[in-house]
Every structure is written in C-alpha cells, then in structure tokens.
C-alpha cells in the first residue's frame, strides 16, 4: 500500500493504482480523454500530465501511465502542467467543428468541461480545418461524426478488448487520421452502444437518442436492467417536465452504472433499447369487460369472480401465471394471496417469452426475465400436485381450468396458436397488465399495472444477488404496483395483513434469508466497493 502526496494531501492506495485513480480517491479530477479504468492504458491523449516528484527529481509525466509509489509527490495543477493541458486542448479543438449547439453530447462532453478549466483563451487558429466524415453510420445503433472525434481510441479498444472483435479502427496517419469501421465490418456487436458512453466527446452518438432531448433536461435514476437475468446496474434517464416536445415519451435512454460484481461499466444493447414498453401501448384505467371503471369496482368484481370460482370449481379449477419480470415484493405478496390465503395449487412463473436473449461471453444470459431467481427464493410456484405453465395453458384449453389470472405477460402474443381462443374457453380471465395487449382486450377484469420504472423494488439476478431499483417515474394513469394490486385483492378476499410500502414488504420477505436481510433499503444495493463508485457512467 504505497502512500503518496497529491496536491499536498496524503493518500494511501493499493499497489498498482495509477495516479488518476489515486487522485480520484481524494476527490481530485485529473483531466483525461483516452484513459478509462476498464480499458488498457495507451497514454495517447496526453491530457493527464501531472508533475511527479520522486527521489528529489521532478518530471512532468502521465497520470494514467504512472503508478503510485511510496513517497511520491504529485502536483496536478502547476503552471507547467496547466500550460501542457491547455496546449493539448488547443490541439484537440484545432480541427473540431465547435458545433456544441447541435451536438447531442453537449452537457456531458469532456472537451466542454475541460475548456471551462483549461481553455477560455484567444483563438490562435487562422488556417483551414480538416473535413472528415459526418453523419456516418458505423453500425445499426451508432452514428459517427469524425470531425468531433479526438482519436482517443477508447471505442477501438472496447471492441478489441471487451467484445473481442475489431470492428472500429483508426486509419490514416497524422491529423488526417480518421476513426471508421474496419473494412467490411459493421459496429454491430450486441454491446455496440457502450462506445457512445466511452466516447468522451460527441463523435459517436446513439441513433435512438439522437436529437431526442438535451441532456441537461434528463433526470438520472438508479435502476436495474430488466431485459435478462444478469441484473446489470443502469441509470434510467427520464424527463417528465418537457412533455410538449414528444407527448407521452418519458424515458429517453438507458446508461450503464458501474458495478464491479455484475456488469462493470457495460450494458448490452438489448438492455439499452428495452425501455420502449414503458411509454408505449400502456393501460391506465381498470376495466370490467370493455368498460372503464374505478379500482374499487374492478377489484370488487375480481374478488367476486375468484370467490365464486373457488366455490364452483374449487382450487383445482383456478390457475395463475405471473411473469418473473415482477419484483420480489410483487412475488411475495402474490404468494401470500394466491398460495397462502386462497390455497391455489396451479400457480407458476415459468412463462415463456417471445423476446429471447442470446447468451454470450460478456453479460447477456439466455433468460428473458430479470427475477426468476427471486421467485424461486420466495417460494412462488405450484403447490403439491400443482401444474407448471405449459400444463396450465393446456388445462385451460381443454376446460379443466376455468378461471385464469395472468400477470405481466401477453400470453396469447407469446404462445400464438397454442393460446388461440384461450379467453373464450375460460369461465373468466383476470388480467394484470401494463400493456393493452390481446389478452387485456378480452379479460373479464383488467387491472392496470405500473412498470418497474414507476415504483421501487428489488430483483434477484441469476447468481442470487439482490439489487434494488428506484422509482424513476410516476405510474402511468391510474396504474398501481403489482404488489399493491395483489394486496388490495387480498383484502377484498378477507386478508388481515397489509403493507405500507415496498420497503415494508421487503423487510418482511427478507426475514430468515441471508441474501436479503442484510440489505439496507435506503442504501443502493448491489454496487460493490471500489474507487469508481461515484455514480456517474462517464469517465
């Protein structure tokens, strides 16, 4: 553990820590473009020059390429280092188009940030600038403006080192050098948009986010990606205050959140693109048949149907399918209602999905749902003699199951022919859903559900790691969190218990489960220790 002094303050860091990270431990920012803790050090932008004094000898050198050593004295801001950095910044801006007003990266651009500290000088350039490719599609999801590029090679290194296929390269030499695709290759790997996060400037931009919203309008909320069972830590970038620009659009993009134990700095393009369902085809008013009603009426009707069903068909005549895209809190309250109170047997969460991810060596798993492990941990599932999903669907088709409750899955959309006419064959169908899908259209009772982004909760990933997501948005319309729907239904059916909020549910469900009950609801679960834990995806 070498101890060194940075800008007059002593700090102890682990062996092998470079000076950028050592300074960050003290809250000192050493400007840099090409350095990223997840990639190899190339030291090519030359922005992180600091003064290093060691054994009585002073020199100016890179903070990224020099490791902390005992007795080292580092000065980040001296007249020499500031001049050196000003010089680098001037060179970088030399051929830069300075088109911040139309650049999506404005507001989160390192060139802009550093210019506030190291710039503000007279423009000394009176020779023509280079022109390079603009509005160039490097892949299906990423667009390039090569004139804005500072040639830091982060994106190139991401493709080489993290994904493992050389899809981008820097070609040519001297100042005519340009970042572009490798000949014959597209930037089409399933993690391609990470290069947009890595890009310290506005050269590489996400097509989906391009010209959608200025970044300073966006609110950043800690969340968990629901698109596979890895549970990557993300930020949801939402804006509910400028609705006049794109009515109805509230979520604008997903950014990775550093977690050394789960996803490091990266997320998949699948996760990044998977937020459209939050703002599309939503339902916000409870329904009985085709009629919009109040929650009281709808829940009363649902309780009536369940009670009557139990009387005429018995527990064997009822089936429940809950998609494990629901949180642990949802699963726990659902279990208390369905298994413990109503004593239903045919209760399952193993529902199929039409949106199957393809597992790979990096993050993606082959499970489309984020919380299958949580459902297992909480004992949600069929009772003794209870059927699994496929059998429940079959039983519903041939009339053995008369009443079906479906939550969070578009069963007909997924099963296609196998579920054709399902609703008509049943005595009744109660649908808990966020989307106005085919099943919702034909449900006896429709109960609109808030999505994960509209309430807090926890997911348990496939390795058993419990992680919390925060509420980013207010629920759509009159929709309510799934656990609250189950709870209100339970109260209609005679339950004596009730929870105040998600936190209370979590406290109860955690009892006796070591993976859960050590967690503090108010802390952000999941993010492990580390020097990067400053909750910003930009490096």
């Amino acid at each position, binding site marked *: 553990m070498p101890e060194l002094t940075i800008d007059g303050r002593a700090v102890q860091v682990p062996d092998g820590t470079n000076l950028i990270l050592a300074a960050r431990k003290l809250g000192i920012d050493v400007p840099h473009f090409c350095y990223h803790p997840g990639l190899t*050090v*190339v*030291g*090519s*932008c*030359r*922005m992180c*020059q600091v003064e290093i004094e060691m054994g009585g000898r002073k020199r*100016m050198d*890179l903070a990224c*390429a020099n490791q902390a050593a005992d007795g080292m004295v580092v000065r980040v801001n001296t007249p020499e280092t500031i*001049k*050196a950095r*000003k*010089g*680098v910044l*001037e*060179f*970088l801006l*030399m*051929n830069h188009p300075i088109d911040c007003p139309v650049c999506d990266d404005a507001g989160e651009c390192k060139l802009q940030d550093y210019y506030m500290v190291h710039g503000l000088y007279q423009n*000394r*350039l*009176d*020779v*023509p600038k280079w022109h390079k490719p603009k509005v160039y599609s490097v892949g299906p999801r990423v667009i390039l403006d090569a004139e804005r590029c*500072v*040639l830091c090679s982060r994106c190139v290194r991401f493709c080489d080192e993290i994904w493992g296929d050389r899809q981008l*390269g*820097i070609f*040519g*030499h*001297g*100042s*005519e*050098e340009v970042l572009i695709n490798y000949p014959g290759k597209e930037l089409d790997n399933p993690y391609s948009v990470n290069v947009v996060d890595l890009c310290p400037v506005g050269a590489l931009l996400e097509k989906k986010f391009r010209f959608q919203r200025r970044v300073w309008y966006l609110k950043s909320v800690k969340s968990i990606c629901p698109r596979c069972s890895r549970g990557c830590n993300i930020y949801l970038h939402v804006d509910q205050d400028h609705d006049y620009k794109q009515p109805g659009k509230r979520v604008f993009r997903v950014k990775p959140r550093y977690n050394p134990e789960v996803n490091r700095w990266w997320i998949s393009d699948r996760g990044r693109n998977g937020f459209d369902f939050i703002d599309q085809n939503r339902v916000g008013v409870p329904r009985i048949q085709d009629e919009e009603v109040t929650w009281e009426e709808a829940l009363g009707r649902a309780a009536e149907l369940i009670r009557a069903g139990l009387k005429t068909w018995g527990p064997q005549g009822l089936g429940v399918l809950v998609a494990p895209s629901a949180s642990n809190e949802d699963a726990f309250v659902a279990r208390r209602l369905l298994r413990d109170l109503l004593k239903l047997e045919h209760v399952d969460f193993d529902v199929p999905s039409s949106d199957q991810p393809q597992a790979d060596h990096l993050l993606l798993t082959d499970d489309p749902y984020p919380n299958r492990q949580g459902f297992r941990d909480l004992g949600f599932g069929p009772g003794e003699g209870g059927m699994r999903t496929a059998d429940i669907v079959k039983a519903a088709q041939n009339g053995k199951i008369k009443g079906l409750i479906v939550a969070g899955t578009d069963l007909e959309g997924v099963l296609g022919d196998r579920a054709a006419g399902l609703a008509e064959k049943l005595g009744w169908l109660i649908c808990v859903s966020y989307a106005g899908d085919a099943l919702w259209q034909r449900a006896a009772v429709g109960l609109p559900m808030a999505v994960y982004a509209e309430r807090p909760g926890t997911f348990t990933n496939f390795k058993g790691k419990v992680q919390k997501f925060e509420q980013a948005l207010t629920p759509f319309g009159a929709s309510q969190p799934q656990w609250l729907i189950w709870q209100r239904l339970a109260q209609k059916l005679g339950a004596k218990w009730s929870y105040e909020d998600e936190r209370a549910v979590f406290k109860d469900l955690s009892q006796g489960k070591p993976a859960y009950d050590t967690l503090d609801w108010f802390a952000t679960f999941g993010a492990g220790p580390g020097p990067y834990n400053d909750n910003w995806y930009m490096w």
Partner: protein
Amino acid sequence: MPQISLVSKNFQYPDQVELQAALSRGAWEQWKRVLAEKIPPAAIIEEVKAAKLRGQGGAGFPTGVKWGFVPKDSPKPKYLCVNADEGEPGTFKDRAILENDPHLMLEGVAITCYAVGIHTAFVYMRGEFYQPQRVMEKAIREATEAGLLGKNIQGSGFDLDVIVHMGAGAYICGEETALLNSLEGWKGWPRLKPPFPAVVGAFGCPTVINNVETMAGVPHIMRLGAAEFQKLGTEKDGGTKLFAISGHVAKPGVYEMTMGSSLKELIYDVAGGLPGGRRLKAVIPGGSSAPVLKADEIDVPLEFEAMAAAGTMLGSGAVIVLDETVSIPEVFMVTARFYAHESCGQCTQCREGCTWIYKISKKILAGHGQPSDLDLMLDLADNMNGKTVCPLGAAMALPTIGFLKKFPHEFLALMKS
C-alpha cells in the same frame, strides 16, 4: 586525416555482397572464432561495454548496457530486431552497409545473438529498400547454406534464424516500439515505456533492438579488442561513425570518421567544401530533426555530448549542408511537411501540432504571415516538445525552435508589413 575505413572498408568491392568474396576479405572470421573458442557470452557483452560502442541510430545509448537489460532467466524466447528502417531525411548510411557489406552486419547480428542468447533475429527494413532487401536476403541464404547461420552452427549447437521483415514505408516505424508493433502486424504506433523492449518487446518477449551500423561495429570490436576499438573514438564514444553528408557540398556521400572529428573537417576536408565558391549558410547536423547550426557554429566535434552542448544533436549522422542560396523558411516548410505527413497520429500534440506548424509555414511562404506567427509556432513547439509518447513530437519541435530562433529575419522578410 580523421577519415578512416573500418565499417566501410569493403564498400569499394562490388563483389563484397557475395559470400565467397566476403570470406576472402575476412568476413565471418570473428563469428567462427567466437564459436570455436567458446567465448562466454558474458565476456562478449563486457567487451562491447568496454569498447564504448553506442547505438548509431540516433539516440546513442551504450549498446552493451542495453544488452545487459535483457533478463537472463526469462522463460520466454528472446529476439533481436535490427533497425534497418532508415527514414530520417538526409540519412543514408545504413543503406550503404546493407547494400555493400551485408555479411558484416550479419556477422554482428550472429555475435550479438550469441552474446544475449537469442535464436531469432529480425531485420526490420524500410519499405522502400528493395535493393537492400534483395542483397540481404541473398546474403542470409548464402550464410545459412554455408553453415554460418541456421541450426547447429559450425557444430556448436547454437541455432540462429535471421528473418528480413519489410516495413510499409512509415517513418515512425524507425522508432523502436513502433517498429515492434509493425513487426507484429499492428499499426505502427509507438508504445508507452516502460516496459522497455529489453523486458517486453516483440510478441511480449525480451527484445534487443539495434541499428544496422551498431551491428556492423560488433565484429570489429571482436577483431580489434575493446581497447583498440574505443581508442578510435573518444572516451565515451568508441569506434567510428558513418556520416551521410548531402546538400551543397562538392562530394556528397557516406564517409566514415573517427568519433570526435569536427563537423568543419567533415564538410570542408572530407566532402570537399561548398561547390562554386558559395558561402555556407547553415548545417543540419544530425538528420532533419536536429536543430540547425549557423555557419559560424560548425567547429564542433562530431560526438554525442559535444553536439548536445552545442544545442543540437549528432543523431543518425546525417549532415545536410545549406549554402547561401537556400531559403530557410522553405527548408522549414519542407521539414514541417515531412513531419506532418509522418506523424503517426497517436498523440494529440504531434498529430495536430505538426500539421498546424506546417500550415503556418506554408502561409508565411505565401506571403500571408504575421510576426506573431513566429511566437505562435514557438509556443506550439513548446507544447509538443517532450510531451508525447515517442520523440517524433520533439523531432518537429526542435528544428522549429532552431530555425525560428536562428533565422527569424528570413521569416520576417517574407511578411509584408
């Protein structure tokens, strides 16, 4: 007369490129002696250290010391790279060795490999060196067939393969770590040091990188002994040096001089002075990246330390002589154009700075300059100098400072008001 024939001794014989002819003039004798007498490798390294042989590629690092940095107990293979990527404008002394006496260099390669424990040597050759490539490949073939290279050389059990690798013609690949990247098939971008190539070099293995001329000196050290060889030069720079003199001299060409001879002697006595009675204006003494010397500054010994004291560098020994007819701003523009074109584009300052300086120099030549441009270029040079991964940034900055500080009046004369 400071001129001497050691490395260049056999340049005069057109058949020296043939193995039989070379053997008749003593080629490969030291290599055979090393193997026959089983001279301990450590003794050879000590001999080279004592001979004060310094790297002749431009940096002048003591060769024996460099060999000593290679870890002795590395489980990985070790490599030798001969740097034959002679690309500095004005430099053509390695080409003389490669084309005229390939066996001398190969013998040096063999002795070096034996001393350091290397079994594969690469000759990384500049992309445009078609003729040297042909000559060198033939020499390697003949030497291998004669049992001087290859497997179990002369029954000693020592193996050595020598491979010629052609570059693609980038100046930057003469920088040793860019050379390694190019050799490995990557883009020729210099690497961060440390780790130094002696520890992590070609293909991640310990690698010795030496200039062609340095290699050619090794057999002479073995023949003359360290003391004799060192005496040909100065206390710190042993042996001789090839100088490639070009520009406005009567007899441009490659001349071998003892270390420490004066630049003035080289220009006036050896190369025959300036033709047509013209007056000397300036000398670029060590390749295009060396700061220029004015006519009255050339009485300086051709030796690494003395040149540094004179504010310039010996570099690769490429002396460019400029007479009074030359426009310094034009020379400067051509130099800047070269570096702007050859900057590898990795580091910000060099990538953008070389081009910026080139554009300003062009602007001045076109008559659109302002006096403030000189200060701007000096400031840009300061922002580039010594702040990049490799010395190419400095290679542009130093001549900029040299030209602008020593000949500002020539630039100002081009500015109208």
